[in-house]
């Protein structure tokens, strides 16, 4: 069977096609990740990963197809999956039930990283509306803050969200653990800890990754981090 038999309708996601060489370059980035060999051993086509997969029940999505495309080194199909499929994965790792020890969820993590690093349309689209979360985790060290619980952001979570929002400061001060009195972070993170976190983002290239998908966010984060490091007398 040729690879094209698996390929979905070409204009579903509305992304631009690129030459085969570009698809091969991207696949090479996936394959050269040190974790790639840990995550892929071959495929029986048994479908256990699909049966266990929550996303497969609600989307046109299959962890088996991802593992097979990678195993066949089908750069064409891997590219299409990077544009159309990978953001549907729930990253629950139920697919680790694979009898061969494959980790389709892990392959998808790598494919997502490559999509972000190369500013693929799917990554930009998937991360639209997600900027404030990235800002929160990278700049404060905690991802979910109490003040995110706003009724207009979570209208489907019931009237309790409004109650929390209206009483936020009071209810936070009623929490007995001393670290929990915060409203804009999950807990009280020390200044020195934040400086260390910023250095990690800068020195591992994690901050640079943001540039490809959201230049404005990258600029803001860079400014916040450099300012803090300068205060501490540390060269970024």
């Amino acid at each position: 069977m040729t690879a094209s038999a698996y390929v979905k309708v070409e204009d579903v996601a509305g992304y631009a096609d690129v030459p085969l060489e570009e698809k091969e370059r991207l696949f090479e980035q996936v394959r050269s990740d040190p974790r790639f060999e840990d995550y892929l051993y071959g495929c029986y086509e048994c479908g256990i990963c699909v049966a266990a997969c929550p996303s497969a029940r609600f989307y046109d999505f299959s962890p088996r197809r991802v593992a097979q495309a990678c195993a066949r080194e089908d750069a064409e199909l891997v590219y299409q999956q990077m544009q159309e499929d990978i953001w549907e994965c729930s990253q629950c790792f139920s697919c680790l039930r694979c009898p061969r020890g494959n980790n389709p969820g892990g392959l998808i993590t790598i494919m997502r990283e490559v999509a972000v690093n190369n500013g693929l349309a799917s990554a930009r689209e998937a991360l639209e509306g997600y900027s404030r979360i990235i800002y929160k985790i990278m700049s404060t060290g905690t991802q979910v803050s109490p003040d995110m619980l706003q009724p207009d952001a979570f209208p489907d979570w019931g009237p309790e969200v409004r109650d929390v929002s209206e009483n936020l400061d009071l209810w936070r001060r009623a929490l007995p653990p001393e670290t929990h009195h915060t409203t804009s972070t999950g807990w009280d993170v020390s200044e020195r800890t934040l400086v260390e976190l910023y250095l990690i983002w800068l020195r591992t290239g994690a901050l640079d990754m943001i540039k490809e998908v959201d230049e404005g966010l990258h600029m803001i984060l860079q400014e916040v981090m450099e300012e803090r490091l300068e205060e501490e007398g540390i060269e970024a």
Partner: protein
Amino acid sequence: MTIPVDELKRKKERFERDPETLPEDFHEQLFQLEEDGEWTIQRVPEPYVEVPTKYGRSKKVPMAHLWHHKSCGQCGHIPGYSTSIFWIMRKLGYEYEDPRDQTSCTAWNYYASATSNAAAQAAVAMRNFAAASESGYYPLIHCGTSYGHYKEVRAELLRHAELRREVRDVLATLGKPFVMPEEIVHYSEYLYAVRDQIAAQQVRDCSRVAVTVHPACHYYKLVEGDAIYDPDVYGGQRTAVVTAVAEALGAEVRTYSTWFDCCGFGFRHILVQRDFTRSFATQRKIEVMKEEANPDVVLTHDTGCVTTLDKSQFAAKAHERNVGVAVLSEAQFAALAMGAHPYKVCQLHWHSADYRPLLEKLGIDWEQAWAEFQESLKKLESGERQYLTWDDVDG
């Protein structure tokens, strides 16, 4: 030929593992790397309890001197979760450290957006482990995703020398030691280990409460070997955490056919694509539980699972779906059983699904409890006090 169903069932009841097919024990390499001078291993401090894991090996779970690696989702949106964990530990008389020198594991963002990489994720983990080690306390991980992700990080560091070098260098620039804990321990493992001590301090009867359990994917599917499996719970066929605590408290644990399914959290989906999360949580979990087990409460042991199962029911209810099950962590349930205040400690007013029928089954007058909580708040509103403390909630 007739299929010997009864014999197969008996076999499943008492599953014996083949010692020849045991996967490698990661500890050998962990300690070898210490001998080679690559890192230091933080030993599990005494006293500890040895608990059984998936492949039959035992795992040390420390009882005291714990450094609470908090969860951003718990502290941020379900604060009664972390408060209950602390409260139980105080009640049992075990000292602990609630650090400010701790960041989130950042894995929620990583699994949602991939705006990070293996080195950054490992460096965040090792920075937190270093902070715990420097404090002299041992890390106890509150979040199921942090726990799973840190085990994933450990596996990657064990396997890839170049990654170890890169992360060690980053830690060195921070002035931090390169320390890996002997065991990565989740709080639900701690509660499993002390369940008899919890039951010994039980003051509320749970025998009328029907419980279903939702096990967290990142607890037992991600680097699965050191999750707790107990031959006396589900015949060792399913992870024993949560269930063992509910059983120790005398609750009736009921099963259902989608027990192994994910909750539908999805990391990015819960924040920006909740139609998927809501559909999965209600159709594959809550409705199935309702139809097959009709529980008073679903107990789980992870940040995302409590959030997803609890918050997804409101919209489904509007569509007259068969939902309406209280959702608690087993830490909150255990705390309630031990006499914790439903609002001052368990903070149930942050939850969405109706928990009041459950409180009534536990013999708790929730209207009176709410009035007591409001009375406490007056101290803050009047300016008499800036914060409530542990003394206030236990008084």
